[in-house]
């Protein structure tokens, strides 16, 4: 009987990678957003940008700014050295052309020439940027470089979680540090940055935290379902693998993506 099973030899012997509850939640969240965008797109396409709950009219910090660490219980000050924001741009309802290294398409109904599309995981190079260690917590930059040949856009937050050397997730995924976000357009070779703040396990009393070594990060670019893993320097970071609920909140935070140095 030709047909069925004829092309079984083309299958991936390994099959798809296992997905955790975090990945499922992520797919649902993206589906929900897609549904809203579709509904909004019928009425007013610009509203799609507001779907992520972004509020306008606040200054945008640049790539070098520190992350707010108010929810992390720490005996030491978490604000440490605070370099001034390198850029500030008004965040109107329509993304300003100045936020990216390539200009955005005209907003009118003038003929649009190949507007940049969202960056895909496969076209991005993710790497760790400089980090500042403050006592008990680490603030590090995470860089997203357009490795493709065409401009692409990033909007919002990456999904970040820690992995053990064996590849299993350690602790909860990073929470979003609520701030205004803007679309970042990346020319080929250009980089966007997010700040990630991590409270190290040593901050927490043993009753609250079971430390586990994380040696790599799993990073989902905004809106993507394919993750990239990034090795952590040295012997890794001690992360609370379990946390009692309501006793200090989230251990890791990320900020929205902004253009690096721009």
């Amino acid at each position, binding site marked *: 009987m030709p047909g*069925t099973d004829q*092309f079984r030899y*083309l299958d991936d012997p390994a099959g*798809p990678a296992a997905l955790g509850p975090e990945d499922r939640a992520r797919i649902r969240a993206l589906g929900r957003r897609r*549904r809203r965008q579709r509904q909004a797109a019928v009425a007013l396409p610009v509203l799609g940008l507001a779907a992520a709950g972004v509020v306008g009219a606040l200054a945008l910090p640049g790539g070098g700014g520190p992350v707010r660490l108010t929810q992390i219980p720490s005996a030491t000050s978490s604000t440490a050295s605070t370099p001034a924001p390198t850029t500030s741009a008004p965040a109107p309802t329509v993304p300003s052309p100045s936020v990216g290294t390539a200009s955005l398409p005209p907003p009118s109904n003038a003929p649009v020439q190949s507007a940049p599309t969202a960056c*895909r995981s496969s076209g991005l190079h993710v790497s760790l940027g400089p980090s500042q260690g403050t006592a008990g917590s680490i603030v590090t930059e995470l860089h997203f470089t357009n490795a493709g040949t065409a401009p692409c856009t990033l909007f919002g937050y990456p999904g970040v979680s820690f992995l053990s050397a064996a590849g299993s997730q350690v602790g909860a995924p990073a929470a979003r540090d609520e701030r205004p976000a803007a679309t970042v357009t990346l020319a080929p070779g250009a980089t966007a940055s997010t700040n990630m703040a991590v409270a190290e396990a040593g901050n927490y009393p043993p009753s609250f935290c079971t430390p586990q070594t994380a040696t790599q990060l799993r990073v989902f670019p905004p809106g993507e*379902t*394919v993750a990239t893993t990034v090795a952590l320097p040295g012997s890794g970071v001690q992360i609370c693998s379990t946390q009692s609920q309501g006793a200090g909140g989230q251990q890791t935070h990320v900020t929205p993506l902004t253009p690096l140095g721009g």
Partner: protein
Amino acid sequence: MARVDAAFDAAFDDLRALAYRAAYRLLGSAADAEEIAGETLIRAYAQWRRIEGHAQPWSVTVATNLALDRTRRAQVARSHQRALVQPDTTPDPHIEQRLDLQAALRSLPRRQREVVALRYLADWSERETADALGLEIGTVKSHTARGLARLRTLVAPEA
């Protein structure tokens, strides 16, 4: 919403496996297949109420079209820009068969493509395919035969 979530969750692994397999058979890349399976699931959840009764064939069809679309874009990108593409580390031993399968599917009209995708990418029987698409089994047979003729001229399956 809770009912939709429960139904989607129950179907999740099955739909993901179907989408992954269809995309992998066409593209031979785990990364691409993962991405397409993820995108298929996002779309499925976004319009779950509309597709719930036929989520399986819908997922195979969407993944197939996403995979074909990706190869088209990749070909265009390659023809414009060769220098910056990194060579693959491990060559795909079945790349010829995959390209032929892509070409055959792309040459078919929509309905025939759905039938052939379910039969040859999801390995469904004629009966299952007919039930899933709401077609007479005779129609599935004739679509399959025509699709198969196209495949035969292109694809030389391995033993």
